[in-house]
């Protein structure tokens, strides 16, 4: 722990600069060009991109070297994420395996499980999806009703999951299911369920954007072997919470950069509409720039506060701000477009609609406020 030893410094150290330049140079030589529009249409492109990243050792940059990663620090992950955003590089295809599936196997899996699952996550040979949310278990995740019954040598699963990105592509599902009638924080088990079997049915879910990024997944007697239980029967809730924490680290600065790049497009739009002298529009735009800058800075400050590589609950601050800014930004773009927003604006239309999910996905803004209230401000729980 080096807390409080080095002086405050907002510039990159020589080593960090070297790391950044290495990533930049590599990207100059290997950038695949723009991905096709759409999560589904770009899948094969992004899978190929993941293989390219993997060959260079960049697929699981935060993973320990023993498991094929580079053991990057949080700061290096942040730099890496920023450079990917700056270069407009596509996201790797097996994103859920890389940021959640792999880390949970590394943290809670047996040696056998690590040998079996980790390598194909990195290479993209096996895609992963996440089976947590259900129609009646959204923010209240511990209310999952999908049941796993003991059978000879394993478990038989029945129930329904929802919002499952990549379910139709995935080989493995991180599955949270009830395995007993104990209290709600001790009756869940974390399984790795094979999606290639008759008891699993996937139905695409059409979103307000018209895309089918998500799915519903129906389990009807699907079988999970005993060796695919992660972290012991009855410990699913604790492991699921840990998994959700993996989702956030180091994203503040790179998502701020992403927004700044979109804001630059918005400035161009404002100028092209002749509104760059409009005081109201200018100030709304500048307010977004200010808030985006505070996301970036909150993200960096969060890195310094992280203990043993795990960011604290303050990450919820950035999540709340990120969602709100994406929404305000696209609303401003439509106000700037005026009548032109009525037709022929597929990109801003997509962005405006997609931004509505930002305050819902990955924990709603309301849940993030609960986290801040209870865990940072120590306010009493209602529950």
């Amino acid at each position: 722990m080096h807390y409080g030893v080095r002086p405050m410094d907002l510039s990159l150290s020589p080593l960090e600069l070297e790391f950044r330049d290495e990533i930049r140079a590599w990207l100059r030589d290997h950038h695949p060009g723009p991905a096709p529009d759409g999560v589904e249409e770009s899948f094969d492109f992004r899978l190929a991109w993941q293989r390219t990243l993997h060959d260079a050792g960049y697929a699981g940059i935060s993973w320990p070297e023993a498991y094929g990663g580079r053991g990057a620090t949080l700061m290096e992950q942040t730099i890496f994420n920023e450079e990917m955003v700056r270069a407009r590089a596509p996201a790797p295809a097996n994103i859920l395996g890389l940021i959640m599936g792999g880390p949970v196997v590394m943290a809670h899996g047996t040696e056998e499980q690590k040998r079996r699952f980790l390598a194909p996550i990195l290479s993209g040979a096996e895609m992963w999806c996440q089976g947590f949310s259900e129609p009646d278990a959204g923010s209240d995740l511990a209310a999952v009703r999908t049941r796993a019954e003991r059978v000879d040598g394993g478990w038989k699963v029945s129930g329904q999951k929802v919002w499952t990105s990549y379910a139709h592509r995935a080989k493995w599902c991180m599955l949270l299911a009830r395995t007993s009638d104990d209290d709600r924080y001790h009756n869940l088990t974390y399984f790795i369920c094979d999606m290639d079997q008759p008891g699993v049915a996937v139905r695409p879910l059409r979103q307000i954007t018209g895309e089918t990024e998500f799915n519903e997944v129906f389990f009807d007697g699907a079988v999970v072997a005993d060796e695919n239980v992660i972290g012991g029967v009855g410990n699913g809730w604790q492991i699921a919470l840990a998994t959700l924490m993996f989702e956030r680290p180091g994203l503040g600065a790179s998502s701020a950069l992403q927004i700044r790049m979109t804001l630059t497009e918005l400035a161009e739009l404002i100028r092209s509409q002749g509104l760059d002298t409009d005081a109201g529009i200018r100030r709304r735009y500048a307010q977004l720039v200010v808030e985006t800058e505070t996301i970036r800075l909150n993200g960096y400050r969060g890195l310094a506060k992280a203990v043993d590589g795990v960011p604290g609950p303050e990450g919820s601050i950035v999540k709340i701000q990120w969602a709100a800014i994406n929404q305000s930004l696209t609303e401003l773009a439509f106000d700037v477009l005026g009548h032109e927003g009525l037709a022929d604006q597929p990109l801003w239309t997509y962005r405006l609609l997609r931004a509505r999910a930002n305050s819902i996905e990955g924990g709603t803004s309301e849940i993030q406020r609960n986290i801040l209230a209870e865990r940072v401000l120590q306010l009493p729980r209602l529950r």
Partner: protein
Amino acid sequence: MRFDLDDEQRAIKQAVHDLCEARYDPAAANRRESSGPDEFWSELTRSGWTQLSVPQRWGGQGAGVLELSLVVEELGYALAPATFFGNAAAGLLVAASQRDEHRERWLPGIVSGERRAAFGQVRRDGAGLALDAEGAAIAVLAVDGDAVVVDPLSAGLDVADGIDVTRRMHRVAAMSGEPLHVGQPHAVDCVEILIAAELVGVAQHAMELAVEHAKQRQQFGRPIGAYQAVSHRCADMLVLVESARSAVLSAAWTADHEPDGLPFAASVAKVAAVNAAWHVAASALQVHGGMGFTWEHPIHLFLRRASASSRLLGSADQHLDRVAALTGLGRPDHAQVEAALSSATDGAAAMSRH
């Protein structure tokens, strides 16, 4: 990169916090009802804090804007009078004068605290207003990116009370002032950062009062902080306070280490801090319910301070205009903005440097 205070900076902040707690009576924060001499000022002078703002060659300790902002944040937290902030702000402006004679004449008194400087500004109508100028030897009044020095300050200053009862406002004859010719344009931005730092302290304390009240106050059989209508209000306060704090720390560091990025960083800090201070204080008052509307409860003092300090130097709207100009929406007919542009990288470049 390491975006966090180091041990020494932490110690400075804690020391001022402790000093305020031990020596500054919150009941005295309402200066309109306790108009005695400001003993806290002599306390700060004795402990040597006044030396912080001035370069070593003029007798000060020459600490950074960052260290100074930490002191001012804690004084804002305590709603202490403007004496220290005013003297420090004046010190930054005088130190940036193009004339050595100005520095030789005024800095020693500012450093020792023996000839304290009050800070204020010249309003658009030409009226000079200084904060807590009673007992000050001189007044430094900001005007249009420069400042004038009124020396000596006449005894028996005209009191012009405004919304902020935590400090006195005094009328100063700005016409008699001597122009300072502030050479470095970033001196004014450094003062903006101090104002923003003070506002962060105000917001932090108002939030703490609200959170404490939400834990204690029971209605419908449970603490009101258990209701999301209240707890989410408090969470929003945290988002505002931490964002403003990040912006102020970054701006102060930028002032000390990368002055080219200062116009953008200072404007971001001022906008974020003004936003945080007013909204947090107003929201904290709401959490206190009817009790928050009483004269007796201190929360209105924070609301008043938030409003008054937000009106020093550039308004949030002016800073938003500058941010717009610095990040892709330039307006060539605006001289001030152009001046700012010439000394700053554009926003994207400022981003990429970090």
